[in-house]
């Protein structure tokens, strides 16, 4: 009688020893795995590291007026809006004036590289997902996990594998930031007008001709919304990556948390916000400009 009552009130969990053994087994096998392959993985990611370090050095070595001119030029190319260009220039001048120039350049470097990685992996993956329902039902839960699992949890195996530094930071950013571009590429392609696609089929288009001639061009606004979201999410990872040794605006923020420096935290936080707003406005208005065929929609 008593045993039944016990069984009901206390969840029949594994005993402590077997639980410990399971965890130990997982830990040690992963440790073995990282000893075995850690080095080769590092060599695999080496080009990425060179690229990231190179870009960071380039940004830091370039005189600031040139950087500001380049940023103004890119903002103009993207948005064709004087307002956005002026806003971007003022933001960067303020960032420099308040002594955050170097950190901002480091952050710019890692955001640019991780966005490029996310785009070059995410768009093909989204295309594959749009092609088959099975692929979609396979990838969607993985994307869900990537977006919801706390960043600290996947930082553990990444750091175990690759140690502390820029590359694990980059990987952490990509894990968190890649889902939107994958999802919206998939969605955009699936939302392409059925008849437009059927017309391509009826005229004998191959898969490639359909993909590059009809599906991607018509899905571009959605794909761009995905890229925009990916950039935003990458920026939001800046503080977390600073915990594993990535230089940038996150480092002073982290310092101000542990030392209660309100002003320092606020300034660097606002610099991140400014970067986010500039990226967002420029990429959004570029996405809109891609739809020039919709310009005359309302007129008959």
């Amino acid at each position: 009688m008593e045993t039944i009552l016990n069984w009901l009130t206390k969840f029949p969990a594994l005993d402590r020893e077997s639980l410990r053994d399971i965890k130990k087994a997982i830990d040690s096998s992963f440790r073995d795995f990282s000893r075995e392959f850690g080095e080769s993985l590092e060599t695999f990611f080496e080009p990425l590291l060179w690229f990231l370090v190179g870009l960071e050095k380039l940004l830091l070595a370039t005189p600031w007026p040139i950087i500001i001119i380049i940023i103004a030029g890119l903002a103009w190319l993207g948005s064709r809006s004087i307002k956005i260009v002026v806003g971007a220039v003022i933001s960067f001048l303020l960032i420099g004036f308040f002594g955050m120039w170097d950190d901002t350049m480091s952050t710019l470097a890692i955001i640019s590289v991780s966005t490029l990685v996310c785009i070059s992996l995410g768009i093909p993956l989204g295309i594959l997902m749009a092609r088959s329902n099975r692929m979609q039902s396979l990838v969607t839960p993985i994307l869900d996990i990537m977006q919801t699992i706390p960043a600290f949890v996947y930082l553990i195996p990444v750091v175990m594998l690759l140690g502390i530094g820029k590359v694990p930071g980059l990987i952490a950013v990509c894990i968190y930031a890649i889902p939107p571009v994958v999802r919206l590429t998939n969605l955009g392609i699936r939302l392409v007008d059925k008849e437009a696609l059927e017309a391509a089929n009826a005229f004998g288009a191959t898969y490639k001709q359909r993909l590059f001639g009809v599906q991607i061009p018509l899905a571009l606004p959605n794909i761009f919304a995905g890229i925009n979201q990916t950039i935003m999410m990458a920026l939001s990872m800046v503080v977390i990556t600073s915990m594993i040794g990535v230089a940038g605006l996150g480092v002073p923020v982290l310092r101000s948390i542990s030392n209660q420096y309100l002003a320092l935290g606020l300034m660097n936080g606002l610099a991140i916000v400014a970067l986010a707003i500039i990226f967002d406005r420029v990429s959004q208005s570029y996405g809109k400009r891609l739809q020039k065929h919709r310009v005359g929609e309302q007129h008959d």
Partner: protein
Amino acid sequence: MTDLKIKIENLYKVFGANPQSMLKHIEQGISKKDMLEKHGHVLALNAINIDIPARGISVIMGLSGSGKSTLIRHINRLIEPTSGKVIIDGENILSMKKKQLLDFRRYKASMVFQNFGLHVHRTVAENAAYGLIIQGKSKNEAKKLSQKWIERVGLGGFEDHYPSQLSGGMQQRVGLARALATDAEILLMDEAFSALDPLIRTDMQDVLLDLQEELHKTIVFITHDLDEALRLGDRIAILRDGAVIQQGNPQDIIMQPANDYIADFIQDINRGRVLRIKTLMTKGKTVAGPNLVQHRTLEDALTEVASSENKACNVTDNKGEVLGSITLDQIISGLVRVKLESNTETRYH
């Protein structure tokens, strides 16, 4: 007119989880309703046999859900049948390999869609050239070849517009130009004019008839509109619940509807404007009276017959040879609608 271009033979299409397993039920003559209720499959096309002659407009008519749009997509194999054959110029397109099928779609059959199916990110010129680009022609060549068709459908000057800047009628002209530009012998038109306003629809029908007079393509035209079917069709096949219930010359269908469904259907048409005097004439008999050409409609011939001395006229072929004659009484009785219920004997032979 008489050589066969497309022969659809015993075509079945079942939609559902396991269409092949339904074939044995079809052999036992299951109805569409029973198949849906008992087996959860939709019988979309049921034993379709249609012969489509070359160089004419064949209309396939039916209400929504009759399977007409499914049927036309079998001709260029946008939809795979559950069983049956589609033979075009003696070749069963269902046994074609992928490459052959692509070539068939590129060079032999082009299509016009109900909602135009234009590519909104391409200009009018780029849309019209699309089929040629797919064929592998260079941009310049495609543009040059398609330009002629843009002008032919009356869109000269709109080359650089995007579809969203055009009205529905103009958009469908782009669709037509795109289909014509590939120089395919077969033109599949799926409710091509159904999304247009009545006036513009008539306009487009004129454009099509005009083009056909010159091009003599094999056109398969899908519609739910009987007036349109009668206006365009050299032949009409009427589809109901996935089966052909009558096919033939429009005049014959009006004079001898196969069943009450069709009789009901043709109730409201303007018989005077559709029926031709050749259909009603007495063959071989000549009368003392003026000569009328065979393809004139009853309405058109009425005043001349009525004002002639004997209330009768001769009917001639296009060269003036007398074929027979028609009287005022015949015309009047031709204008009377077929009554439902009564008169069944004449309707069913």
